[in-house]
């Protein structure tokens, strides 16, 4: 293969509140049976990238468990493989990663020992489907130093993203992080293609200067020195970075088109096998406009909700506009609206949990109400 992959899965977000207390964002459950990182991993595998490094730091345990076998994404061991890099102590190194660039720099031997000409850098908390070969083709055709994948947000709010200005040829002129006054509606979605040797050179240049960030210290700082081109992506793309976007991303799966694009069409998104039995709809069960995970046992009503694996809902319970994660239990006669129930939450008979679409109530993992 012509490229190796790096998935940055180190981030944590205060804006995801209690949901990332015990897990990395990349390990956030999405769409009834996936973890966020499944999308990037499957994109890599489906694009024929057979050597992939996942760099992780915060709450890495949750990810390590999910990635404990490379089998599910069919990465091999010899010509490629799935490599997981966590920070470690050594005589000349006792740092946690100080930034995205630093996290790659600390694993520079991985880059140096490889012989693939290109590197695809992506992030573990994005939900999308993409054939990276197309970006590689574009990168070569433009003879670019760096290609960044961009998306036109049209009328959407871009003030939370990196906003880029392009010339007619697609070359990047300016890049501003979270601008107060955005000059364009085109944002960088955080996927980069770069020659492996150039990446090594850049990392070795910026590290002694105490610069540790890919966007700030490479993309922006070198914007005039390097030929950076934008590859425009027009498909579904979502970034899980706060409660609202997490909630919305899950609800997006209830849309037939989004579901068709992401889940129903080949190539498929793979995830760790969980071996649950089929879902069971008992007498009185009533599911409408909802995703239901394997092993659920349903007695009550579920509307416009996303249920993960092994959720139990009692008789005459009503769940609306909610996300219920794996192993949660909802008793009889409950009402749950616009809520996010983390794993193994227990809601006892007759309880009501009601939030708003704008501000869903979150019940932490293992909460008993």
């Amino acid at each position, binding site marked *: 293969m012509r490229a190796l992959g790096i998935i940055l899965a180190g981030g944590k977000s205060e804006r995801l509140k209690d949901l990332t207390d015990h897990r990395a964002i990349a390990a956030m459950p999405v769409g009834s049976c996936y973890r966020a990182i499944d999308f990037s991993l499957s994109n890599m595998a489906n694009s024929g990238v057979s050597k992939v490094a996942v760099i992780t730091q915060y709450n890495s345990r949750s990810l390590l468990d999910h990635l404990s076998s490379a089998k599910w994404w069919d990465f091999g061991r010899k010509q490629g493989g799935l490599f997981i890099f966590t920070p470690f102590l050594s005589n000349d190194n006792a740092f946690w990663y100080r930034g995205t660039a630093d996290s790659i720099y600390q694993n520079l031997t991985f880059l140096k020992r490889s012989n693939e000409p290109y590197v695809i850098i992506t992030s573990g908390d994005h939900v999308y489907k993409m054939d990276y070969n197309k970006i590689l083709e574009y990168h070569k055709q433009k003879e670019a130093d760096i290609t960044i994948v961009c998306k036109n947000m049209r009328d959407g709010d871009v003030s939370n993203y990196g906003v880029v200005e392009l010339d007619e040829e697609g070359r990047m002129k300016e890049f501003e992080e979270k601008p107060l006054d955005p000059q364009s509606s085109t944002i960088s979605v955080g996927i980069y293609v770069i020659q492996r040797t150039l990446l090594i050179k850049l990392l070795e240049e910026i590290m002694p200067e105490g610069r540790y960030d890919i966007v700030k210290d490479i993309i922006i700082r070198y914007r005039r020195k390097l030929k950076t081109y934008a590859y425009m992506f027009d498909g579904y793309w979502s970034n899980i970075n706060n409660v609202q976007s997490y909630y919305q991303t899950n609800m997006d799966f209830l849309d037939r088109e989004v579901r068709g694009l992401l889940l*129903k069409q080949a190539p*498929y998104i793979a995830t760790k*096998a969980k071996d649950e039995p*089929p879902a069971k709809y008992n*007498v009185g*069960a009533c*599911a409408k*406009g909802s*995703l239901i995970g394997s*092993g659920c046992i349903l007695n009550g009503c579920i509307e416009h909700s996303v249920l993960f694996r092994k959720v139990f809902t009692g008789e005459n319970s009503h769940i609306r506009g909610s996300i219920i994660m794996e192993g949660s239990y909802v008793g009889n006669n409950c009402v749950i609206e616009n809520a996010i129930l983390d794993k193994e939450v227990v809601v006892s008979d007759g309880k009501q949990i009601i939030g708003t679409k704008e501000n869903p109530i979150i019940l932490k993992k293992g909460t008993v109400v």
Partner: protein
Amino acid sequence: MRKKEMIAMLLAGGQGSRLGILTKNMAKPAVTFGGKYRIIDFPLSNCINSGIDTVGVLTQYQPLRLNQHIGIGIPWDLDRKTGGVTVLSPHIKGEQGAWYSGTSNAIYQNMDFVDAYNPEYVLILSGDHIYKMDYAKMLEYHKKNQCDATIAVLEIPIEEANQFGIMNTNQEDRIIEFEEKPPNPKSNLASMGIYIFTWSVLKQALIEDNRHNDSSDFGKHIIPSMLEDEKRLFAYRFRDYWKDVGTIESYWKANMELTKTLPEFNLYEDFWKIYTNSDHQPPQYIAEEADVQTTTLSEGCEVYGTVYNSVLGPGVLIEQGAFVRDSIIMANTIVKQGARVERCIVDEECVIGREVVMGEGENIPNQARSKVYDCGITVLGDNTTIPDQVWIGKNCVLNGETKYEDYPEGRLESGQSIILEGVKK
């Protein structure tokens, strides 16, 4: 090579002809059950749950589907460096090749495979039954009684005993006599076809028996001759759910039973999971206008219509206005708008056209195979297409890409069949 205390040999050769069109393209162990499982998943999962990590699967009839399903054993954690699951097909040895001609003959032909693991005990299983069983406990029993062979038995109603292989035992459950389908049964202990043998004893018996019998069978030859030699054979009483799903009716009933609120057979136990090869199916989606009740639904289903009292396999699509009741719909089948499906078994990859009505009318047994299709259930083989707006009765069998012209006046009366050749697989 690491020595294994006990390895399992799973006889998955059965054609299961009483399952009719369902086993046309595959062996019985490859038939689906409970929506997402195949019958062989149950013994395979029992193995790994009992701590047995070496399983030989003996097969010769239509093994492709089974091979694809088992692969290298990843779903059952049987992809091992030493051991794991191995599919054993017949092969040429020395000058000639030989097909397996009987249950114990199949083991005889694979003695080299067993010997390679140098086991003390060999567990013989069949791939035909639905049950959960801890073989480790059976092995403990075998060791405690210093058995040469232990045979799992089920206590059945004595009036049915004349249809089974019956073990006559003494007080301590040592087998003193074996009778195949005795007209006047002396006991109600029926053999389940699950044996643990001390390998050295079995090996001896197989070699001995091969001198006399070309098509050696456990029930007919090996067990009787061991009894004659006064070997220690014990009956191991099993008292849990165990189902032979060998006929269309028993197969349909066992599936339907799963949809009950508290089914007799519990698939939802965490400590005894049933594993299967489920590919990468997305989650199931139930639409606004759907109504699903008393139903077992697998991954990847999308339901826009009404489903009552049914078992749906992975990736099934039930379109708007479609109505499914008392039916088994297997993987990736599509039931189009306004179709009505009752008391049917629909195999994988079928398409049922718009406003088709299936499973109504009189209960007339199938004309061609009245013994197989006689319980009012209409069966579609895999990759069958039903054109829009036809009417199909009971006990019908269909297979192939049928056209409207194949149906006289758009109808197929009860007991009739349409089986087209050259179906794509």
